[in-house]
């Protein structure tokens, strides 16, 4: 009997150490400085609300803690799209004025590996900038830091909420420097190829409602030809 107890205790301690090792992995830190910060190319900077209820439209499979918006939007319940979310949001410039429209498709990635601190999402932005043109931004994002520093503390909190200051670069690829791939569509952006990074700034999160105060940022580099025509 005592051997069985020792075995079970050892297994529990081992499992706890394993989970703690994954959770507090010191090699899992995400960037807080954009890889594009050292680029000499011109940038476009957009900010947008990352609170689903403040977007023009947000939808998912309909059973998450985050409410779809508006209320009667179609939900993505079919098996092939059940892991996908769509957000349609206004993109603001640095002065807070509306500068574009962004449609973001996000799907959980099969490359997700929690043991490596990778909670990956494949996401695509379809962007329209009035007077400028259209863009496609393709990226892989890592939500590990967001889960560890915002979502899990909110669930552990007795008030089911988290408040603080969180800022991370979410983009992890597919570019070699961890940047997103940008393809120009129409207008001044036609034919361009460049890079982008997306960041997330969180100030409040509810374990029962989802994001409460949260903004996203999207920085897109412009090759000389496109930036010169602005």
């Amino acid at each position, binding site marked *: 009997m005592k051997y069985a107890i020792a075995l079970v205790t050892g297994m529990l301690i081992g499992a706890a150490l394993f989970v703690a090792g994954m959770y507090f992995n010191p090699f899992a830190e995400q960037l807080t400085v954009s890889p594009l910060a050292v680029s000499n190319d011109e940038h476009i900077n957009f900010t947008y609300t990352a609170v689903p209820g403040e977007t023009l439209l947000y939808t998912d499979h309909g059973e998450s803690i985050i409410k779809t918006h508006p209320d009667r939007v*179609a939900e993505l319940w079919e098996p092939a799209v059940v892991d996908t979310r769509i957000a349609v949001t206004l993109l603001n410039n640095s002065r807070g004025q*509306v500068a574009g429209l962004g449609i973001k498709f996000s799907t959980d990635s*099969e490359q997700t590996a929690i043991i490596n601190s990778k909670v990956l999402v494949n996401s*695509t932005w379809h962007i329209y900038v009035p007077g400028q043109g259209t863009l*496609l931004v393709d990226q892989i994002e890592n939500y590990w830091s967001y889960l560890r520093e915002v979502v899990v503390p909110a669930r552990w909190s007795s008030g089911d909420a988290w408040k603080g200051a969180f800022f991370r670069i979410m983009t992890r690829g597919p570019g070699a420097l961890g940047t997103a791939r940008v393809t120009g569509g129409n207008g001044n952006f036609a034919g361009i190829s460049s890079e982008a990074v997306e960041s997330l700034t969180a100030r409040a999160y509810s374990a029962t409602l989802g994001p409460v105060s949260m903004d996203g940022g999207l920085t897109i580099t412009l090759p000389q030809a496109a930036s010169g025509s602005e």
Partner: protein
Amino acid sequence: MTYSVQVVDLHREASHISVQANGGNVETFRAELPRDRILVGLAGQENALPAGLKWPGADVFGSLQAELFKIRDRNDVVIGVASRLASASEETGPFIEWVVHLPARGTVYLQMDVAPSAEGHRNGSLTAGTREFETLGGSVREQFITVIEDEDSNVDGRIELITAFVGTLGDEVVPPGDEVGSLDDEE
């Protein structure tokens, strides 16, 4: 165990692809109307979709029309989602474009001709693709097929995107349907 157990396992439908006689894989994506329409964003629109949508006025996005759809395969099974942007803006030049996001496969970015062909459909091309579509090039045909139109002009129909993709971005591919007579026979 975390190596062997896949945390995310996306659902996959079998792809229905036929091979075009002169090269290229032909695949048909469709959106049934109105049931697959998720969003119609257009300034000044009286009946917003979805109900309660607060779309900006014409002073913000001008004539831009933004639409979202669920996308089905040839067998009527939902396999992805798509956005369609269309604008008659003089500043950017008029455009119509699609982004088709197929979660388990990747995304395609399609630019369409603004003017429809004599047969009533639009031709276009693949501008960029991700993952499975990353190294592909090719063409696409967009066509609207009316199924039922009632006395109140309510239309039931479908939008079809018939793609013909082939390896190596930039290769010329004959628009689907122009080469293969059997394409319509499959429907």
